[in-house]
Structure formats: structure tokens, C-alpha cells
């Protein structure tokens, strides 16, 4: 067996096609990664500069009513994962800037894809795309004739004459092609991890990179096994190539896109008008049992007067508008949370449909896994949005509490008693993305499906080895 593997490895090494295709794909992968990495660095610098400028503007608003200062709002930016250069995932289709203002929760704006006229019409041309879509083609190109050409040329019969077992023969083919593919992948990942590890100040990036490398190794293994199995089953090399190319097209291009269309049709998202007007309606008319805005306001005012033992809002020892705002905004936050949670649930249901479809496409399972491990998937973005929302609420509550403490009764909105000291006292937004362990956990279902694919491909290979015809 060892001799056979060595012979097959030697054959792969001496195969001009293997070197040409392997080097071509490696150069392509590294070029695409290099360009993406530089672009990401540029974007990061621009975001840091914009964040600093936006904060400077916030800090130096000057004298104004605290609530008007709060309405000027702040911007926070979703940090790009260091591995976004490898797999930008949903990043291009979602903006990075989030505007924070009182009363309302906003969505990320200014997606890069919307500014580019043809971006992503077919696919994003990224390092991850090269490995998910083009690497299997390379495997198909190298593997389609592995067994069938030996049969066509008569060498298979000769090997059997030398008492080589069918299983050993097929497995040696599989192991040689796997070793060649694994070497190319290991080289590619080592080369991209060097600059990333250099920049990263934690092990997290390396762990994620290593996990990604292993996942892609398994993914490539699925196609190697499929290629050798189909080659063993086929009567001619042409038939093997035709079948493998059809399988590649189906698994890599058709199933993922079909699944996206099904997910879109099955789980409808609200239109912007529906979404925002539902929030407005629930805020104004109230959630079941809460009463409408006027009733809630009246109830709150009565309670406020009772609490402070006064007859009129004007006589309150605290700022009435600020206290009212604290109450109303807490309610608005609750309403927003309900609707945003529902929207994210729908996103998750659409993702679940994609995940189910990945039972029919290892490429889709790999895409989902890659995004999760690279930190560019929905969960990572949801985690950021929740952190940003918590920050928005905290800042606005602090401003309103300050306002309540520094004003009395019904103080006019034209009074300018907020100043730079107040704006500057607001803490800066700091964000810690989920650790690699959490990403791995959320990638587990897709990884599990990938493992099933690997098992199925291996079973097919075993069956092909048993049923190998001379």
C-alpha cells in the first residue's frame, strides 16, 4: 500500500497539469487575498479616522439643550474581522456605520455593495470563493481520469495481475490526490496567516485560521473522494468528466442560489414601510394591555406627581420632560426590541433553510462554515448590533438622567444648559467580538453537515473500490 501511495504521489508530482493548475490557483488565491487585505486595511484606517472625527464633533457640540445634543447622535462602526480579507461574508452587503440617536434604533447603513454597480451579481471574487468554487474544479480536473484512464490504457489489469488489491489501488489514488491538495491548501493558509498573525494581538485569529484550514481540508477531501469514486464507476474518461462537471456545477452554483431563492420566497421579510410603521403603531397604540401613548403618559404623570407630592409638573424638583423621556424611551426600546428580534428571527429562519439545503451541497455548508469562522456571518453582526444597541440605550439614559437632575419642572427645549463637559463625559463605545470558541459552536451544524458529506463521499469511494471493474 505504501509503495502504491508513493508511486501515485510521484505520478502527481510529475504531472505537468497538477503543477500548472496548482500554481495557477495558488497565485490566484494569494493575489485575491493580497488585494482584499490591502483594501480592508484602507477601509479600517478610514473607519478609525471617521470614528475619531465623529467623536470630536460630538465632544465639541457646545452649549445646547441636553436632548438636542443627544439627537445630534453618535456613530459607531462595526469592526471588520481580521479574516474578512479571506471571507468578507455578509460584510459587503451590510453597511458598517450605525447612527445612534434617542428614541429609535437604527440599522447599519451605507453598504459597499450598493455603491458598486455590478458588485456580487455572480459571486464575490474572494479567496474563500477561490477555495469553495475553483479548488473543486482543480480536483475534478486532476481526478476524473485517475482510475478510468488506467482501465482504458490497460494498466489496471496489469496491476491486478501483480496481486494489487482493488481497494488498495483506489485508496492510493485517493491518498495521493488528497496529499497534493492538502499540501496546496496548507501552503495557501500558511502564507495568508503570516500577515494576519503578525497583526493580530491575540491567538483568536490563528485559531480561527487553523479551524478554517481544517474545514477546507475536509471540504477538498469530499471532492477528491467524489472524483476518484466517479472515475472508478465510469466506463470512459469522457463520461467521468461530464458527470463530475455536472456535479460540480450543481453543488457549487445551482444548489446555493436555488436555496437562497427558496429562503427568500419562503420566509418573507417585512418591507421598510411595514417594519417601521409597525414599530410606530405599537409605540403609539401600545402593546397588548399597556394602553395607548396618551393613557400611558397620563398614568405616568399621575404617578410622578404622587411620587414627588406636587400638584403640577411645573413644580417637580426634577426635569419633567427628561423623566418622561426616560419612561417613554424605555417603552420604545421594548417595542423596538420586539420587532428587531422578530426580524432577526426571520433572518435566522432563512439561514436555517440555507443550512438544510447544504445537505444537497457541501459548497453551501462550506460557505456557511467559512463565514462563521471568519467572523463575517449574521451571528457576529447581530452580536455587534446588540452591543451597539445596549450602548445607545446607556448613553441616552445617562443624558436623560443628567437632564432630570439638572433641570426642574417643564424647562424649555430652547434652554442651553448642556455643555461640552456633558458630551465628553459619555464613555466611548468599545466592542469585543465573540471568541473563536463561540464561532466554532455556531458553525457546528454546518460543520456537521460537511462531516456527513465527507462520510457519504468516503462511503461512495469504498463502494467504488469494491465494485471496481477491470
Amino acid at each position, binding site marked *: 500500500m505504501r509503495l502504491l501511495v508513493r508511486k501515485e504521489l510521484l505520478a502527481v508530482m510529475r504531472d505537468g497539469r497538477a503543477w500548472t493548475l496548482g500554481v495557477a490557483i495558488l497565485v490566484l488565491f494569494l493575489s485575491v487575498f493580497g488585494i482584499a487585505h490591502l483594501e480592508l486595511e484602507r477601509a479600517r484606517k478610514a473607519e478609525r479616522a471617521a470614528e475619531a472625527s465623529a467623536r470630536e464633533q460630538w465632544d465639541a457640540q457646545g452649549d445646547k439643550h441636553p436632548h438636542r445634543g443627544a439627537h445630534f447622535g453618535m456613530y459607531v462602526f462595526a469592526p471588520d474581522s481580521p479574516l474578512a480579507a479571506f471571507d468578507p461574508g455578509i460584510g459587503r452587503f451590510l453597511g458598517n456605520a450605525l447612527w445612534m440617536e434617542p428614541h429609535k434604533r437604527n440599522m447599519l447603513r451605507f453598504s459597499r455593495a450598493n455603491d458598486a*454597480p455590478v458588485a*456580487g451579481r455572480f459571486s464575490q471574487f474572494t479567496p474563500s470563493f477561490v477555495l469553495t468554487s475553483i479548488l473543486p474544479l482543480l480536483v475534478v480536473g486532476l481526478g476524473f481520469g485517475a482510475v478510468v484512464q488506467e482501465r482504458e490504457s490497460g494498466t489496471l489489469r496489469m496491476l491486478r495481475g501483480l496481486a494489487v488489491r482493488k481497494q488498495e489501488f483506489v485508496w492510493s489514488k485517493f491518498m495521493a490526490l488528497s496529499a497534493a491538495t492538502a499540501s496546496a491548501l496548507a501552503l495557501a493558509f500558511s502564507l495568508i496567516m503570516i500577515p494576519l498573525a503578525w497583526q493580530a494581538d491575540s491567538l483568536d485569529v490563528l485559531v480561527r485560521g487553523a479551524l478554517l484550514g481544517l474545514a477546507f481540508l475536509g471540504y477538498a477531501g469530499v471532492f477528491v473522494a467524489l472524483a476518484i469514486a466517479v472515475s472508478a464507476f465510469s466506463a470512459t474518461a469522457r463520461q467521468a468528466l461530464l458527470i463530475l462537471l455536472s456535479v460540480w456545477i450543481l453543488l457549487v452554483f445551482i444548489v446555493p442560489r436555488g436555496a437562497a431563492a427558496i429562503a427568500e420566497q419562503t420566509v418573507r421579510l417585512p418591507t421598510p414601510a411595514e417594519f417601521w410603521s409597525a414599530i410606530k403603531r405599537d409605540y403609539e397604540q401600545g402593546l397588548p394591555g399597556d394602553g395607548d401613548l396618551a393613557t400611558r403618559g397620563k398614568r405616568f404623570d399621575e404617578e410622578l406627581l404622587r411620587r414627588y407630592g406636587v400638584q403640577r409638573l411645573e413644580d417637580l424638583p426634577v426635569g419633567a420632560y427628561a423623566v418622561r423621556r426616560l419612561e417613554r424611551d424605555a417603552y420604545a426600546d421594548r417595542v423596538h426590541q420586539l420587532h428587531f428580534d422578530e426580524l432577526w428571527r426571520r433572518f435566522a429562519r432563512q439561514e436555517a433553510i440555507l443550512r438544510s439545503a447544504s445537505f444537497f451541497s457541501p459548497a453551501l455548508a462550506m460557505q456557511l462554515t467559512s463565514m462563521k469562522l471568519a467572523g463575517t456571518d449574521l451571528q457576529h453582526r447581530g452580536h455587534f448590533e446588540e452591543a451597539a444597541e445596549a450602548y445607545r440605550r446607556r448613553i441616552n439614559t445617562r443624558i436623560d438622567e443628567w437632564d432630570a437632575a439638572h433641570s426642574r419642572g417643564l424647562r424649555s427645549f430652547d434652554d442651553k444648559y448642556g455643555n461640552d463637559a456633558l458630551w465628553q463625559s459619555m464613555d466611548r463605545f468599545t466592542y469585543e467580538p465573540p471568541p473563536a470558541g463561540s464561532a466554532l459552536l455556531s458553525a457546528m451544524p454546518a460543520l456537521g453537515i460537511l462531516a456527513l458529506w465527507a462520510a457519504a463521499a468516503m462511503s461512495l469511494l469504498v463502494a467504488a473500490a469494491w465494485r471496481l471493474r477491470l
Partner: protein
Amino acid sequence: MILLLRAEWMRFIRHRPNLIILALALLLLLAAAVSSGLEAARQRREAAEKTAHWEGRLEALAMKLPARSEGESAAAARATFDFARNEAPPALRPALGGLALGVRQFAALPSDVRVSVDSRHLDGRKSDVISNPLLHSVGMPDFSVVVALLVPLVVIGLGYGLVQEARENGTWRLVCTQSPAPWKVPVASCIVRFMAVFAMVFIASLVAFGLDPGASLTAFLCWTLVSGVFCLIWFLVVALSCGLRISAAASALGLLAIWLFTTFAVPPVLSALAEAAEPMPSRLDAMIKVRKAQLDAEAQEEGLLKAWYAGNPEHRPASIGKHAWPVSFMPRYEKQDSVIVPLMAEFDRKRARQASFIERFAWLSPGLAIVMTGDRLAGADAQRYARYAEAVDRFEARWCEFFVPRIMSYRGLSREDLVDLPKFESIEAESVLGVMPLMASAFGIALVLLYLASRARRLVATP
């Protein structure tokens, strides 16, 4: 040649894998056509409902307004401000007759903007689209995209190695000795296959357009022509590959490499070149400029208010001397919008210019070109979107012109004023002129390939 065509047809239909490939491709194209056609119909229905809903709402709001102006009051100013901010008619971007071709691209950009008297661009709720970015990152299959991806693969699957295989099994030597013009054999094969593939695209397109009630014959004819040329271009590429003295397998892989390169590598390169030629301004810089405009306008609030009344003495209220929000904010909004609106319009203009740049070179990637043609026919192209955005800005200017004096004068809005309520004037009707350059370059590329294929006849004629 007729005899040859008949023979090739028989050979084609008797080869079962050919029929399987065609049937599977037709099934996939039909699925995409049905999905796109139904989605187009749904979007048109939704747009009509939005207009009807607004008209109904306007009637209800009108009943709450006084029949005539009841004099100056802060409440009237506030109610009019609320009306002007929240109740504008939907400024809809109308789809064109080929919506089914690019229905998802059409939905990717705002097609229902609500104008306002405050700064609309600061509020994403008034225009931004809600969609799941995950589905976009996986790839949303518009009908034109499915055609662009699938047809070349079918053409390659049906046509690769037409001569190489014959060479490999020794029959080509026979053809060369028997026929004075051996090139006619692969040409006849390509013609037969072209007819089959084109018929498949035609049937699926017919279904997509048929399901969309707003589809137009002009768009359908343009699409039929362009998709026909698209099929022809790929068959010419396949025909050219017949002249190469390589194995059938190498020919298949080579053709796939061409498909991968032109479909996935050329578009980002063209995008990068377009970005270099027409650099997009930075969204982040714009954001900082917008905030500066807000701060400047806020700092000048009092001066702006005075200047406004000085410039519009006929709207100065007689009974109210001290002004508060929203009245005091109106000149501020006007001032900051004088910075924000041109800043935001620049993004749409640049995007349109980039698209025009890409269109000039789009046939370097036939897939991209057919998708851009689909976008044009659907009304989802960047150039049209820029015109729509300009129309929205013009409408918003008229909206403000109508409402701001009523707010600033504290007279408010009355029922009789509604007769003059500004309406959104939709952008221009359908025209095929937009797709002409793309169609012309398609024909150009097809002619060049045809010329090259005719020159390659000699290469095929050797055993």
C-alpha cells in the same frame, strides 16, 4: 449542408446525455423564470397597493383638516410639519417591461422614498431597504443571472471536444478524407446545438415575461435578441476551441476556465477600473461633512430664522414673535440640506458613471453584459436609478416649497390646499435606447468571433 444538419440533429437527439443536460437546464431555467416572474408580479402589485393606500390615507387625513385656514397658531404649524414629514406620497421608482429579468437587483436599491421637510438623508427609515445580507452573499438568482451562469455551462457541456473526440477515436481522419470541407461537420453540430439551447432560453423567457403582468413586448424582443447573441457567442467560442490540437478533456477544462475567468474574474476587474476612472466619494467623509453641516446650521439657527423671514416677509406671522421647534428648525433644515442633498446625489451620479464605464467594456464578460442588459430592461440599472434619485430630489424641493411657508407662517394646511399638493412626477417611460450600446457591442463581439471562427476552418481540416 441541409443533409448534414439533419444528420447532426439525429446524432444529437440520439445521444442520451445531451437530452439529459438539456432537460435539466430547462428545468432550472423554468424554475428561475417562474420564481422571477411571480416576484415581479408581486412587486408590481405592492407598488400599486402603496399608491392606493396613500390615496386612502390622504382622504382620511383630509377629513381631519380644517376646510379653510383658520389663522395663525403653533398647533397648526406643528400639525402641518407632522403632515409634511410623515404623509408624503410614495415616490415610487417604476419598473420597466423586463422586470422579471432583474427583479432582485431592482429591489436591492430603494424604490419607495418618502420625501420630507426635514433632512430625509439623515434617516434611513425613509428610503433604506430591508434585506437579508446572507442571501445576497450566497447569490440571489435573478433570471438574467441564471441565464448568464447556466447557458455557457450547457453550451460547454453539449459542445466541448466536438472535433477532439472525433480525433481521439479516429473518425476525424475519415471525415477529413471523405469531405472537401470537414469544418462543416462541427459547424452543423454547433448550429443544431445552438437551436436547442436558444429554444430552451426562449421558452423560459416566455414563461418569465408571461407571469409578469407589466411585461412589455419590446423588452421581450430585446431580451430574445440579446440572449440569442449570447448563446451564439458561446457557441462560437466552443467552435473556436475545435481548432485546438488538445484532448477533449483539456478542451472542456479550458472552456470552463474561460467561463470562470469571464464570469467571475472580469467583472471585479472592470469594477476596479471603473472605480479608478470615476472614484466614488467616501461615505465616511460624507458622513463627517453631513454632521458638520448639521452643527453649522444649528449654530446659525437664530440668524437663519431672521434671514428667512427677511427674505419672505409675506410669511412672517403677525401674532407670534417667539419661534420654537419645528418652526425655528425649518431654515436649519433648508441650510443643512443645501450641503447634504448634493453630497448624497454625488454617490448616485458616480455609481451611474461607473456603470456606464463598465457597460463600455461589458462584452469582455458576456455574462456580465447580458445581466446588465437585463438590468436595463428591468429598469434596475444604475443610470436610471440616478435619474430617479434626481427626480425625488426635485419632488422634495417642490414639497418643501409647498409646506415650508405654511409652517413658517403658522397658517397651517387646510383641505382646500390639498388640491395643489405636489405629486411625484415619475421618470421617463420605457425606451430601448438604453440597451442599444450593449446590443451593438454584443453584435460586434459575435462578428469578431465569427470572423475568427471562419479563419480557424483550416485548423479543423487537419486529421
